[in-house]
């Protein structure tokens, strides 16, 4: 099944929503292996950009991702942070085999430190750990 990226009505007016859709599209085009990752994702992830006062909801339904402006429905995982920390998900260093974040990486360490200090909050991480790991892999621009 070919992946499908949908920008929900009204989401185009929000820069972050458009940027995330563009980022996912570019990653899928350049790295076909990410299509398999997207096909296994199911659930809702809410990204709250505290400094911008914006929120984006990503709905994953087996190869189809819908980008909504604001929080739509009940998210499985909610990530609250400043915009740069949220987008740092795309720059985290991943281990080649597992595809999980490499704690030795500089950006990964920054994200972990921010999480430890409380400037980055993740709600619902443990029950949806596979979803978060796949999201990190999908957004990554490094692997």
């Amino acid at each position, binding site marked *: 099944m070919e992946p499908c990226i949908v920008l929900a009505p009204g989401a185009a007016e929000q820069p972050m929503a*458009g*940027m995330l859709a563009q*980022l996912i599209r*570019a990653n899928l085009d350049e790295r076909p292996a990410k299509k398999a990752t997207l096909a296994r994702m199911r659930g809702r992830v809410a990204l709250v950009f505290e400094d*911008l006062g914006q929120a984006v909801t990503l709905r994953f339904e087996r190869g189809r991702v819908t980008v909504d402006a604001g929080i739509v429905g009940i998210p499985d995982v909610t990530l609250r942070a400043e915009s*740069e920390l949220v*987008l740092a998900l*795309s720059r985290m260093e991943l281990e080649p085999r597992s595809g999980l974040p490499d704690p030795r990486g500089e950006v990964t360490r920054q994200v972990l430190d921010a999480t430890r200090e409380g400037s980055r909050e993740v709600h619902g991480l443990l029950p949806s750990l596979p979803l978060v790991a796949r999201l990190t892999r999908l957004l990554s*621009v490094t692997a």
Partner: protein
Amino acid sequence: MCAPRAAVVLGPSHFPLPRGLAAASGHDDGQMPARPSRVATVREEALRLGVRAPADVFDMDDARGAELALDDGREVHVGPGARAIDDAGIAVRGREERGRDFLPHLEAGPADVRAERGSQRLGPCPPGEEARNDLGREPARDAPPAAVHGRDEAGARVREEQGQAVRRAYADGHPASFGDERVGLPRSDERRVVARADLVDDLPVDLAHLEELRVAEGATEACVVLRHGVGVVANVTGEVEGREGPRADAATPGGEAVAYAGGLEAPCAEKHGGSLTPGVGQARRASRAARPACYRVGVSALPFPSDAWTQAFADAVNASEDYRRYGKPWTFGAVAMVIEKDASLGFDPEPGMILDVHEGVCRGARHVHGLEAVEGTPFVIVAPYAMWKEVIEGERDPIKAMMEGKLKMTTGHLPTMLRFVQSSRALVVSATRVPTEFPH
């Protein structure tokens, strides 16, 4: 168990102790046994030094304050009414005559707040006036100061006895300045005296207060600053010269260079808006002559956008250490920055610039007009003039502005741009270092 070191090593047979101390250490009252006392040992050690140590004698005719031997014939015995003897053993000239030799070269130091720690200032003193007056003044003719306050009562008493107002430029606790060297602490031995006291006065002086000499290096004439005398500082003006080249601040493009004078490396990096803004123009004292003086040369704002600004921007990018570091992996082509069309500001067609950045270096920059000129550029960022102004002035973070959609990347690969967030920020931040004149 400690032995009675005081009795064996430094007993009264060796060095006569004061009566009170000898009685205390000997315990001759017959009631208490003699016991070792560490305190007494220390005291006796100090006494031994006091007895055996020769008095320091300084040849004050030597600018460096070389020390004389005890039997040197040039030793000066100063008592009431005595006169100093020069190198040839001849009585030196009169006070006024000798003082005049120094007058052209001496100048009173300006009032220094630090000098007022030990005593209060005796009143306003125009620089360069009072020291000369003090040197050539007849004490008997001058009225004593109206009031002398401060903690240094001994010094005040001497001045009052001499009947002259002496401004004290240096006082206790004055930190040693650059170029100053403490040359000795003559003891208040009654047989010896420090020569050149006649610089100030060869009348009876309380020798106990002639304790400290300072020789200011770097002065053409050796200068002596007596602790209780007139503050005498050589009239040396620090030379300030512009120097460009290796010491010019490479991080300040647009002809903005920092020149240093003096032997130190410390830069003076405050930003001045004028074309030539002297910083520390001249050294006020000989001790400050060695300190660096700096000024900025050629700081002129460049109109934005323009060819000159674009070139200065390229220079700033090349001078940016951050960009050199984070932009090293960048091999994705040139970046164009375009200002949206605004006829009211004369931006029609859209002005912009193309930076040919590659591996952390800006290989070239072009000022262009119109969106057609940036076609084919791998990365094009477009924003209104007001937004560019905020970014260039450093008031807005370029990455955040991009996330907010205020800086729009109309052409380019977003994952690559996100991957080089630090590089992109360093690139735009370099623009903040360009002195910019914005159109109104």
